[in-house]
Each structure stands twice: as structure tokens, then as C-alpha cells.
């Protein structure tokens, strides 16, 4: 289990560059979001649709940033490594309801435990939180890679950022 913390580009500015909507609280980001010059250069992981439903079913405040008729291509990787889309949280979440970080990880973990039973303890999951940590749009990326059981460590590490 490892969580890597890195600086990330200003998501609000990049959303504007790509002509996408700024979410009120949280949204899934497409692949290549940070390096794309246009939306055409982005792709959605096939798993994005599943995670959207998981979060919607858990009544989490997920917003769409891409209009329906502009959705990027979907890419499916047939590996057993579970790679999930990055989840972006706005400053309003970071500054307000930190419980959303936990509820998100909890909902994803509960789904993965049911849908991908792992008696041999072989599955690994990759998931990132991208968090806007101030009003000016500064963002940090927290990347988790490890067992499904360890997913709850991802929101846990955000508490230490809050305490800094």
C-alpha cells in the first residue's frame, strides 16, 4: 500500500481551457486531463461509468464536467489491476465537509469488495483524489495503489493536510 502526494495543475483553469464545466463539489476527471490541450486528447476509463453510478447510488454530490454530446472516447484495459478514474474535489469540500472524502472511499471500497471478491488477496486498485486546497485553485494529487481494503487510507491522509 502506498499513497503518493504530488502537486497538481490548477484544475479550474484547465477545465476552462478544455471548455468544461467547473463542478460544485466533486467530479471525475478524464485520463490525460492534466496534459490535454483539447478534450479530444482525453479519454474516459470504462470504469468511470461504474464509479459514477457507485457515487450516485451513495447520494454523493457528483457533477458532470463534460456535456453529454462531447463525451471523450472510452478505453477499456483488460488487466486485473483495477484502475479507477481520478476524483476531483473542490475547495468547498476541502474547506467544509471532509466526510465526503471518507464516504467516497467507503462507497468505492464497498462496491469493489462485492464485485471483485479476492480470496487470494491478489487484486490491486489504483485511485487518486485531486483536491483543491485553497481558494486560488492550488491542487494536490493523492494517488493510492494497493489492496481494496487499504482504500480508506486515502481519505485518512487528507486529515494530515488539513492539520498542517
Amino acid at each position, binding site marked *: 500500500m502506498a499513497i503518493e502526494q504530488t502537486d497538481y495543475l490548477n484544475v479550474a483553469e484547465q477545465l476552462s481551457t478544455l471548455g468544461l464545466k467547473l463542478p460544485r463539489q466533486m467530479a471525475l476527471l478524464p485520463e490525460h486531463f492534466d496534459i490535454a490541450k483539447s478534450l479530444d486528447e482525453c479519454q474516459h476509463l*470504462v470504469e468511470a461509468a461504474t464509479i459514477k453510478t457507485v457515487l450516485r447510488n451513495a447520494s454523493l454530490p457528483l457533477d458532470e464536467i463534460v456535456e453529454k454530446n462531447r463525451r471523450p472516447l472510452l*478505453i*477499456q*484495459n*483488460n488487466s486485473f*489491476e483495477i484502475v479507477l478514474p481520478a476524483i476531483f474535489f473542490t475547495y468547498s469540500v476541502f474547506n467544509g465537509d471532509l466526510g465526503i472524502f471518507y464516504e467516497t472511499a467507503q462507497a468505492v471500497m464497498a*462496491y469493489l469488495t462485492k464485485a471483485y*471478491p479476492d*480470496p487470494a488477496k491478489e487484486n490491486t486498485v489504483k485511485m487518486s483524489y485531486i483536491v483543491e486546497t485553497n481558494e486560488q485553485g492550488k491542487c494536490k494529487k493523492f494517488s493510492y495503489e494497493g489492496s481494496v481494503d487499504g482504500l480508506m487510507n486515502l481519505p485518512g491522509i487528507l486529515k494530515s493536510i488539513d492539520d498542517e
Partner: protein
Amino acid sequence: MNKMTPFLEGFNHLAKSVENLLFVTRSKKLQKQAISDLKKIYKEAAKEKIIAIKDNNEEYANTILGCECVISALSSFIEMWLLIKDDEPDKAWDKLISAQKFTLAAIRASDGFQHLKSLFTYLRSIENNVFPPQTFLSSGMIVEEQICSICNKNYEECEHLVNLPYMGEFCYIKLGKIKLDHAAIVNNPADKRCRVISFDDGEVSRNKMTWEETPSKSHEGEGNAINAILLRAN
């Protein structure tokens, strides 16, 4: 919690007796008879599930789905041994992987099948100790459309979740218009039936499972050929 029905009693009785035949040394005659018995009870399960669906009893329908998965897992397990005994290791490998997949599916179907985790571990030990190490492949595809198998709507817009059971059926995604994007050698593929079957060493082609040699298929200046399965329909 489901009540013990006559079907479940019959299923439990058969599953118990078949467990005794999950060894390579058991007679082919008895193992073939067990497969025949499993086929019969699979048909009964299908009828039982229809009744559960008519009764709107989702918990029982999912339990029957789990029974169907167990039946398929046990059947594949025995077929694996029969194929090994018939000197058909490539086909036996596919049956082993099917047995593993159906075992995991049963665990997903209903909480009543959680004890099958030990069967899965046993099947994994057979993979590691009976068969030689394999080279697995994984493909990446560009997908234009995802349709939910449960409601036939756009998967992104419905409430169903892939791999979970709904009224006796697992949700899966029907892919519309796919294009191969890339292929890679990986340690842990989604489907272990996607693997290198044979490879050329420049002089001969060698089967990964049997180690038998056949004439090389490589052409000069084109590198060494491999024969592999990249995608399998479920």
C-alpha cells in the same frame, strides 16, 4: 435468509457427493457421471430461478444464480482433470480458469457462498502446482458505447453495477463498436485464458503447456513468431 427448499436440498446433496470426485485419481467413469448429474441439476436450477423471478423473490433468484455458478465451477473442475488425463492440457487450462471464474461468480451472487473462498484458493494452488508458468496477455480497447445487460439502457445512466447480481442475473456491459488499441504482456490479466500458446525460438515452435516442438512459423527478418490468444468471449 432463504428457507431450505427441495431444490436446495437436492443441490447440496449433489454438490457434497461431487466434492469427493474432485481429485485426479478418481475414475473417469464416475467423473463423467458426475458431469452428467450436474448438467441435469443445472436445468432444474434454471426452472427454479424462473419461479423465483415470477415470485419477485430476488434473494432466492440470486441464490439460485449462485447454485448455477457452483454447478458450472464443479463441472469445469472435473472436466479439467478429464482433459489432463486425455493429454489435452491446453483445453484443461481453460477449464481450470473457468472453474476459478465461476467460483468467484458464486461468491458474488449471494452471501451464502462465501465459504467457496477456500475452493478458489485450492483451484489457485492447482494453477500454480499442476500447470507450468504461463505468459498472459491483456488488451486495451477503445469503446464507443456501453449498454447495461440488465436494463438495456446506456450503462452510464442506469443504476445497475457491473458484476453485481440483479434478480438472478449478473450485470455486465455490452460493448458497442470496439477497436483494439493496444496489447501487453501482464502478470495478472482479467482473463487467464488470454495467453501465449506457443512461441518460436528461431528453430522450432514450442507449446508453452506441453513443451512439444512443431516446425517454426517465423520468417527470416521478421523476428520470432508467437501464437497467442488475445481476447476471449465469455
